[in-house]
C-alpha cells in the first residue's frame, strides 16, 4: 500500500491544536475566550468589511471546516470540494426558482445532496490514497463541472443560473425577511455558528480521535481494530454535507449560481483558505477564510493582480508556517508570554473526563 500522502498534514497541531481531550486547566482557560473571540468577530465583521463579504467569509469558513475535517483531521486532501458546493448550490437554486421552496427546506435539501454526492463519490475516491486520492476528487470535480457547463437548459451553463429569490426565514408564524445584505449576514452568521458547534461536537466525539489516528497511521489504526476505509468514508460524507450547506448559503447570496461555484477554482480556494488558516485546528479555516476573502476584497480594489499576493502568502505559509495563521498567533502569544503561553510538557494533568467543563458547545 502506498504511503498516505500526509505531507502538508505534518503541520497539523504544530501549535497544539484542538484534540478531543484537553486538560481541564486548558479547556477552562482556552476554549472559552476563543468562543468569546469568535462571537466578537461575528459582531465586528460587518463593521470592518461589507456585509456581503462578511457573509462570504462565514460561508467559506463552513466549507473550510469541512475540508479541514477530511484533510486536517483525517489526512485526505480533497481537491474537489466544489463538486458538493456546486451541486448543492444548483439544487437549491433550482428548487427555489421552480418550486418556490422555503429556505429551511432548501438548506436541508442542499445539505442532503452534498452528503449523498460525497457518499457516492467518496466511496470511489477512498479506494486510493495520497496523490491518487487527490486526482480522483479532482477528476470527479471536472466531470461535474462539464455537466454543469454543457447542460445549459438546467444550469444556464457559462451564464450561471440566475433569478434565485431569497426566501424569508419562516419560523412558525414568523417570517423574517432576509432581503438586505445585513439581514442576510445575520442569518448566515447564525447558521455558521450552528455549523461550527456541530463540527466541534464531531471532532470532540470519538470520531475526532479515530479520524486523527487514521491520519497519523492508517496501518496501526486498522491494527487496533478500525475499518479505515469505513471511517474515511464517514469523514468524507460528513464533509460533503457541510460543504453542501455552504453551497446553499452561497446560492442565495447574489441571486445567481455562477458556473464558477462548481469549478476547480472554488475547490482550490477552499484548500488555500484551510492552508493559510492552519490545518487540523478547528479555528484555522475560519481565519483562513477571513484572510482570503478580506485580502481579495481589499487588494482587488487597488490592484487587480491580487491573486499574486495570495500565491506569495501560500508559498510563505508552506515554507515557514506550516500551522498557518493559527500558528502565527500561537507564536506571538508565546513570545508575549501570555497567561497560557506555556503548557508544561508532559505535565501529568488528568485529561480524560475533563471536557464537560468546556464552555460553549
Amino acid at each position, binding site marked *: 500500500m502506498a504511503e498516505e500522502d500526509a505531507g502538508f498534514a505534518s503541520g497539523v497541531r504544530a501549535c497544539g491544536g484542538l484534540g478531543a481531550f484537553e486538560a481541564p486547566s486548558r479547556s477552562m482557560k482556552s476554549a472559552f475566550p476563543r468562543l468569546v473571540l469568535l462571537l466578537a468577530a461575528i459582531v465586528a465583521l460587518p463593521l470592518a468589511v461589507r456585509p456581503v463579504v462578511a457573509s462570504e467569509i462565514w460561508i467559506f469558513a463552513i466549507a473550510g471546516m469541512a475540508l479541514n475535517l477530511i484533510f486536517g483531521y483525517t489526512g485526505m486532501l480533497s481537491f474537489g470540494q466544489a463538486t458538493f458546493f456546486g451541486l448543492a448550490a444548483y439544487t437549491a437554486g433550482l428548487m427555489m426558482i421552480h418550486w418556490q421552496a422555503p429556505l429551511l427546506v432548501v438548506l436541508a435539501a442542499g445539505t442532503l445532496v452534498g452528503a449523498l454526492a460525497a457518499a457516492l463519490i467518496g466511496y470511489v475516491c477512498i479506494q486510493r490514497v495520497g496523490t491518487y486520492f487527490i486526482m480522483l476528487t479532482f477528476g470527479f470535480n471536472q466531470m461535474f463541472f462539464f455537466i454543469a457547463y454543457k447542460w445549459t437548459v438546467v444550469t444556464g451553463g457559462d451564464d450561471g443560473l440566475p433569478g434565485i429569490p431569497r426566501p424569508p426565514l419562516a419560523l412558525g408564524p414568523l417570517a423574517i425577511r432576509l432581503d438586505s445584505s445585513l439581514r442576510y449576514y445575520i442569518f448566515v452568521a447564525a447558521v455558521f455558528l450552528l455549523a461550527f458547534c456541530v463540527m466541534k461536537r464531531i471532532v470532540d466525539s470519538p470520531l475526532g480521535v479515530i479520524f486523527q*489516528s487514521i491520519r497519523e*497511521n492508517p496501518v*496501526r489504526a486498522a491494527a487496533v*481494530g478500525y475499518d479505515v476505509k469505513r471511517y474515511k468514508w464517514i469523514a468524507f460524507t460528513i464533509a460533503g454535507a457541510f460543504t453542501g450547506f455552504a453551497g446553499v448559503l452561497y446560492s442565495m447570496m447574489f441571486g445567481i449560481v455562477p458556473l464558477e461555484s462548481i469549478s476547480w477554482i472554488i475547490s482550490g480556494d477552499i484548500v488555500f483558505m484551510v492552508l493559510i488558516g492552519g490545518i487540523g485546528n478547528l479555528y484555522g479555516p475560519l481565519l483562513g477564510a477571513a484572510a482570503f476573502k478580506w485580502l481579495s476584497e481589499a487588494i482587488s480594489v487597488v490592484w487587480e493582480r491580487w491573486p499574486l499576493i495570495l500565491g506569495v502568502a501560500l508559498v510563505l505559509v508552506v515554507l515557514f508556517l506550516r500551522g498557518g495563521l493559527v500558528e502565527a498567533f500561537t507564536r506571538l502569544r508565546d513570545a508575549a508570554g501570555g497567561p497560557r503561553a506555556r503548557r508544561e510538557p508532559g505535565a*501529568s*494533568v488528568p485529561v*480524560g473526563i475533563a471536557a464537560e467543563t468546556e464552555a460553549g458547545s
Partner: protein
Amino acid sequence: MSDGALLRTDELTCDFGALRAVNRVSLSVKAGTLHSVIGPNGSGKTTLFNLVSGEIPPTGGRVYFEGRDVTGLPSHRLPHLGLGRSFQRTNVFAKLTVYENVWAAAFARRPHGALSFLRRASEFSDVDAGVRRILGEVGLTHKLVARAETLSHGQQRALEVGVSLASSPRLLLLDEPTQGLAPEATQQMTRLVQSLVGRYTILLIEHKMRIVMSISDRISVMAFGELIAEGTPAEVRDNPDVQRAYLGARR
C-alpha cells in the same frame, strides 16, 4: 483444536515474488503460555506475524484462532476476535498524545453503536479507566499529555506495547519489544513482558537470546522461512540444527 491451542497455523506459506519468506510453517500456541519465535535476521519471523495478524494475505496455508479459521480476514477484524499485536518498528500515532494513543485502541474494542458518536470522547469513563490502568502498567502515567513523537525511544516502545494491550487481546503478538533499547530499558521491558505472562497468551519475537531463554515456555526456531525446531528453552538450546542455523552453516 481442543488441545488448548489458542493459535494454530497450518502449513502457512508466503511468497514475495520468487522469494519464499515463510515456508509451510505449522505451529501452535497454547493458551496461557509465552511462546517465542527466534531465528536469524531475515528468517521470516516478522512475515509470520504479518500473516497471523492479517497484515498480508498468505500464499498458502491456514491460520486458526480459537479453532476458527481467520485466514485472509482483514487486519481490522482481528482485534475484535481477541488478537492484538505490536510492531517491530514503533508504529504509534505520532502527533497524538500518549493518552489518545491508548484511548484510540481501547475505544476500538469497546462495543460502540452509532449513538456513541453523539457523546464526547471524554465522556467514556470506562474507556478512561482502562487507558489509565494500561498506562500505569507500562509506566507512562507521567506522560499522559505528551505527544507520542516527543517520547524517548524506550518510552515509545512501552507505548507500543500499551497500545497493543489496550485491545485487551487474548493473544498478544509482540514483535521485538526490546528492539534498539539500551540495557536498562531492555530490563524494564523484559520485566513488563514477564508481568504480562499468565494474564495474556503471548507470541513473542525476540532477538536477545538471554531474555528468550529465561522467560519463554516454548520456543520455535525459524531459519530461511522454515520452522527448524521447537521445544522448551533447554531443548532448543541443545538442538544441533539450531546451533547450525545460528552459526550460519545450514545443512
